[in-house]
């Protein structure tokens, strides 16, 4: 379990008059885990020893000048770098007492930030998006600086990441409500531009945080609606022409934080390690709607690991260095130590598994990216590849994500449809209705009845409304609809032969209405010498199979009833005829089992008859075509009731017989024979 420890105050703050900003420009790491450099938003830079809560040195710019970016420490040269008034870069060492006596250089464009992390060189990011290494810049301070960003585009956030082989400057921008991610590689310089997916209109990310792990850069961002997304970009990335169009940036929803009333205003999320994020300014799920909390969440299990109430206004600023969180709140800057051990379930399952799951996620994410753009064949290939894995069950959540990506693309793009991929995904039994709620309706819309059937068979949680929609569609299926389906089936039938009882023999045997063609009907008439009229199946085999599937879904009477009322009286009569046919068959012999069909049980049939009569009784009474059906049903039920009561009597007598033999009364005296062996 991650834990937050007792915090302490590092220093007091002088927040702005309107309290909108904390007065802290930035907190940066210094030489070791116990030193930080705090830059306030006015004129001073202070070096603190954290454990002593004590300032060691402080530097101030002259009155009239302001610091425009937080000071950073370059551990290689043991120098501090800061920028004042946008264009003046200042570099000094700890022994310099006065900032004015230190090195100064004026550059030709406004600087956004200077970044420096251990192992990398200091990087200067200009407001218009240009990036320079500090050394290169200082060699010719007045060198021209190009404009990278568009006219109305401006930087919102930036950072600097050093990997084994590369140094990156990463920044996000906003342009007319669109957000972009820039990935600037240094030496050799390349730039990639990604477009962030839009959240609800008007919502901009509140905070970003980037981390590098397993050759991927992970960007974590929090929206005011509490959604925390993660986007993963490969370190290598695609080599593209500069200034080209922006790629869509795939994202995955890591967490959906509770936001309480309204949207989040000042909040920040920071990745702590691969499984934990720290969030400030978000309500504690069990403490009402107050947003003054610092929480650690586990993203793997979506669990809250630790929470702490933070006194005073929260500015949505949060830094973390060396297992310490730095939070400005109210009029103080607090240090809160934390700990994130490997979560217990994960460690119980073994580290390997967790590492592997990370790998899976990447693959899924890249697959999902493919799904957004790739043609049908490629999607099919990707799905095949994915499903050929042996550990498919472990990927359940990701498969759901894939399926919903596919469904959403299909919904958007009328030309795109991958029936076999979807069928394959459904067949893994890893999906359910709640994971991709649009799938069944999509299948109905595209008249993919085979997929509908699979969904009905494998989804345990189809709502009654959808079940009824399927039923309606199946009953009113026109012959050409069925033939469409048949061709579909013929195409899709895999090497394992039949799916769901569509065997050619049974198809020939029970086709009795016009759908299958007159020939088979004649054939059947020949086979059955004198079939009673009610024994002719009122629907074709394929339709029957689909209806059987509906009969076997789980439902609740009270939810089903209102939707059943949507059926027309013709549909009801046909369905009732079919149910009656099934019931008669059942009460005569073991017919359904003989053909390997997935067949509904007797009680399921009776339940449907009841609920159907319930929903449409008045309509049926008024419908002349239904009269014969109802009369038949009544007489049959009557005879069945009589039969059951007779059976009851027999059972009673037999039970008495049983009692008589079982009861062995030992009286006061008996003479018995026993045998010992």
């Amino acid at each position, binding site marked *: 379990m991650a834990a937050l420890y007792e915090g302490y105050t590092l220093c007091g703050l002088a927040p702005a008059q309107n309290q909108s900003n904390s007065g802290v420009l930035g907190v940066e790491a210094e030489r070791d885990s116990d030193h930080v450099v705090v830059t306030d938003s006015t004129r001073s830079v202070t070096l603190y020893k954290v454990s002593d809560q004590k300032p060691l040195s402080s530097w101030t710019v002259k009155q009239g000048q302001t610091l425009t970016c937080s000071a950073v420490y370059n551990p290689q040269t043991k120098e501090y770098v800061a920028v004042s008034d946008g264009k003046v870069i200042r570099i000094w060492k700890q022994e310099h007492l006065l900032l004015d006596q230190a090195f100064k250089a004026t550059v030709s464009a406004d600087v956004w930030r200077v970044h420096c992390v251990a192992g990398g060189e200091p990087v200067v990011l200009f407001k218009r998006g240009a990036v320079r290494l500090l050394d290169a810049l200082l060699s010719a301070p007045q060198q021209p600086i190009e404009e990278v960003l568009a006219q109305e585009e401006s930087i919102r956030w930036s950072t600097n990441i050093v990997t084994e082989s590369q140094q990156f400057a990463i920044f996000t921008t906003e342009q007319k409500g669109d957000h972009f991610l820039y990935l600037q590689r240094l030496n050799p310089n390349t730039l990639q531009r990604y477009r962030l997916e839009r959240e609800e209109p008007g919502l901009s990310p509140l905070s970003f945080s980037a981390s590098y792990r397993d050759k991927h850069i992970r960007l974590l961002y929090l929206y005011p609606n509490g959604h925390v997304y993660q986007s993963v970009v490969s370190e290598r990335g695609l080599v593209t022409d500069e200034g080209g169009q922006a790629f869509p940036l795939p994202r995955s929803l890591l967490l959906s934080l509770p936001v309480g009333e309204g949207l989040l205003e000042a909040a920040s999320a920071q990745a702590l390690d691969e499984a934990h994020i720290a969030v400030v300014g978000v309500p504690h799920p069990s403490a009402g709607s107050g947003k003054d909390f610092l929480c650690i969440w586990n993203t793997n299990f979506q669990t809250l690991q630790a929470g702490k109430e933070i006194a005073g206004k929260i500015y949505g600023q949060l830094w973390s260095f060396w297992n310490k969180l730095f939070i400005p709140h109210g009029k103080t800057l607090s240090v809160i130590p934390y700990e994130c051990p490997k979560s217990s379930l994960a460690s119980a399952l073994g580290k390997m598994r967790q590492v592997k799951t990370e790998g899976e996620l990447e693959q899924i994410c890249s697959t999902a990216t493919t799904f957004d753009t790739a043609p049908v064949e490629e999607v099919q290939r990707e799905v095949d590849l994915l499903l050929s894995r042996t550990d498919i069950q472990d990927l359940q959540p990701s498969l759901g994500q894939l399926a919903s990506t596919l469904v959403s693309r299909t919904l958007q793009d009328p030309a795109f449809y991958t029936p076999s991929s979807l069928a394959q995904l459904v067949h893994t039994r890893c999906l359910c209705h709640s994971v991709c709620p649009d799938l069944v309706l999509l299948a109905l819309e595209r008249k993919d009845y085979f997929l509908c059937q699979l969904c009905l068979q494998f989804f345990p949680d189809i709502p009654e409304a959808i079940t009824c929609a399927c039923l309606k569609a199946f009953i009113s299926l026109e012959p050409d609809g069925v033939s469409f389906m048949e061709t579909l089936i013929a195409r899709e039938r895999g090497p394992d032969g039949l799916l769901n009882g569509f065997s050619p023999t049974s198809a020939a045997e029970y086709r009795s209405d016009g759908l299958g063609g007159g020939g088979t009907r004649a054939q059947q008439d020949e086979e059955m010498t004198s079939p009673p009229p009610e024994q002719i199946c009122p629907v074709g085999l394929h339709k029957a199979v689909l209806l059987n599937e509906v009969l076997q879904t789980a439902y609740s009477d009270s939810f089903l009833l209102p939707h059943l009322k949507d059926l027309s009286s013709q549909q009801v009569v046909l369905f009732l005829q079919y149910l009656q046919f099934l019931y008669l068959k059942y009460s005569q012999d073991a017919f359904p089992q003989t053909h390997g069909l997935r067949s509904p049980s007797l009680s399921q049939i009776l339940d449907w008859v009841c609920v159907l009569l319930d929903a449409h009784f008045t309509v049926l009474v008024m419908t002349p075509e239904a009269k014969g059906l109802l009369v038949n049903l009544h007489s049959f039920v009557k005879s069945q009731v009589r039969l059951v009561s007779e059976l009851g009597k027999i059972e009673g007598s037999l039970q008495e017989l049983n009692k008589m033999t079982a009861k062995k009364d*030992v009286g*006061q*005296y008996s003479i*018995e*024979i*026993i*045998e*010992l062996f």
Partner: protein
Amino acid sequence: MGEFKVHRVRFFDYMPAAIRAMAFNRRTERLALARADGALEIFNFADNYFQEKVIPGQDGRAVEALCWVGRRLFSAGLNGEITEYDLENLRPRYTVEAYGGPIWTISAVAYSLSGCVPCQVGCEDGTVKMFEVLEDRIQFQRNLDRQKGRIISLCWHPSASLIAAGMMDMIRIFDVETGRATHRLLVERGVGASKSKEVVVWSIAFLSDHTIISGDSAGKVQIWDGLTGTLARTHLVTKWDVLALSVSQDESSLVAGTSEGTVVQFQFLSSTLDGQNKDWVRTRTFKNHSHDVRALVHTETAVVSGGMDTQLVVRPLLDKVEKNTQESAMRKMAFPHRSLVCCAKKAGLLLFQFPDHLELWRLGESDGHGNPGDSLPVKRKPEKLIQLKRKGEDHICCSALSPCGGWLAYSTVTSFRLYRLQNNTISITKVSKLPKDLRSAHQLCFSTDSSRLFASSINSSVVVVALNQPECKYLHTLKPKSGSREPVHLLFASEDGKWLATANTACEVQVYNLDKIKLHCTVPVYGSCPTAIAIHPTSSNLVVVHADQQIFEYSLVQKEYTEWSRRLQKQGLHSLWLERDTPITHVTFNPKHPAHIILHDMFMFCVIDQSLPLPEAKTRLFNQMILRSLPEPMRILHRHAFKMCKTFQNLMCVRLLEDHSLVVVERPLLDIMSQLPAPVRQKRFAT
């Protein structure tokens, strides 16, 4: 192996009396138990809980309390008398009138330095009377201050200077020196309707730290501080009465028995880890009784309880014993460990012994044969020939019927009676002139030819009487050489009339040669008490079964253990055999199969075939069902010597008649339960 025709008899209406009081002697590990009819029983807890001795009851003797003083046993009762018992001759030694009305309780100091042990009783008239226990009697010493209201319970403080007395609505503490009451602790009455009823302090315990614990009729167990006389804690354990209390010797655990049949345990535990601030905490509840728990003993390892439902229950405390051992198993003792049924095997008669009468029954008859498992049609029903009421106040202690069915004898602690029976005409004649030496007997036995009567008498001796028409004549008295004074509880006369074997509660087994009228041999003494003995009719081997379930066979000719016995001891008995918790109460032989020994306990009867291999540790002991399912040739491979039959349960008696049919007398416990008075009403779910 063979078929048996079994007379399954269920008309013996044996009804044990309720348990009233118990006292445990920690030094000798003997439990004394008093029943409602005045009978006393001594159980040896060190010897598999064997019921060693029974002192029959007496009309009007209602024992309310028992107490051990050293090896001496005292009782007090509602008849106002204190009785000391003679545990060697199994009779009251003397009785002292306390002159205080009914006595409710008796208590003796556990340890005394002076040698003169004070013992006191609490009386109906509100006095606590102190008696001095002298060597051969007790002597009234003095009264403590007389109180209003009866004294129900008493307990000495271990220092012997204070006594706590439970009364109506209160507890008093007396200073023994001055005889004055020093404290009066008021006990709260029950709530509701019982508010108007006096609360009875049924039981009381006085611990060495001056804590007083009381159990009362309002269902409370209360902990008092005896120094200040203040109530420390109240535990409401039942809606009915708390009737009995018992504290473990180290005073760390306490049990309370209630009218609901539950026993509640309290332990002196600390709520914190450092062991400070100990408190009496209610820990466990045992429900082993259907009726009032009247008597309780907390031994070192177990809770022993008894009450209205007549069963003695030993419930081991699982924190004190090793788990899954024989010691950790619960025991319920429902039947006496001796036979109350006598069978005339030649005449097919059964004699049932009750405390106040004898019943003589003739077994029924059937003709024809049947297959195993069948019930044969009963041609002639069994009939009760005679119901013989005893004379005098004393209850019957033993009885016997001669094998021919012509003689019937019974004895009480004060008198002996012999009757001549004519079965054809159903007439009974008392033999009037009896020898003087035949005044009372612990055990009776007729010789096979019905010409001799053997009666065990004082000091382990056996009186031999010749039975002739119309009188009987004293022949001689057989005495063991050991000079033991313990009573003989088992007698067996051999078929050929040559041997008489006796066993006494000192575990001695003697064999007398009746031809030479002298002691033939003494079987090496084994550490456990014999529970059944028999001499083989042809080989003259003596079979002895002990309370610890061991079986020995001793050759009277060679005066040594037989080869089979040695083999049995070498290999050891099967663990399931040793784990049985009721003793073998009878051993007999099958004349048709000389190698067969038939014996039974309460839950099974067993035929031991000495010609078959003994069961090994891994062999299934109860294998009859398996053998039945196997084809004949396969059975031989799976057979072993112990053929155990559990078809019949709650056995009082299994005998082999001369026509080779078995008589099995069952007394289902359910039948006993159904004759008990209704238990206290308890709210059950959905009633």
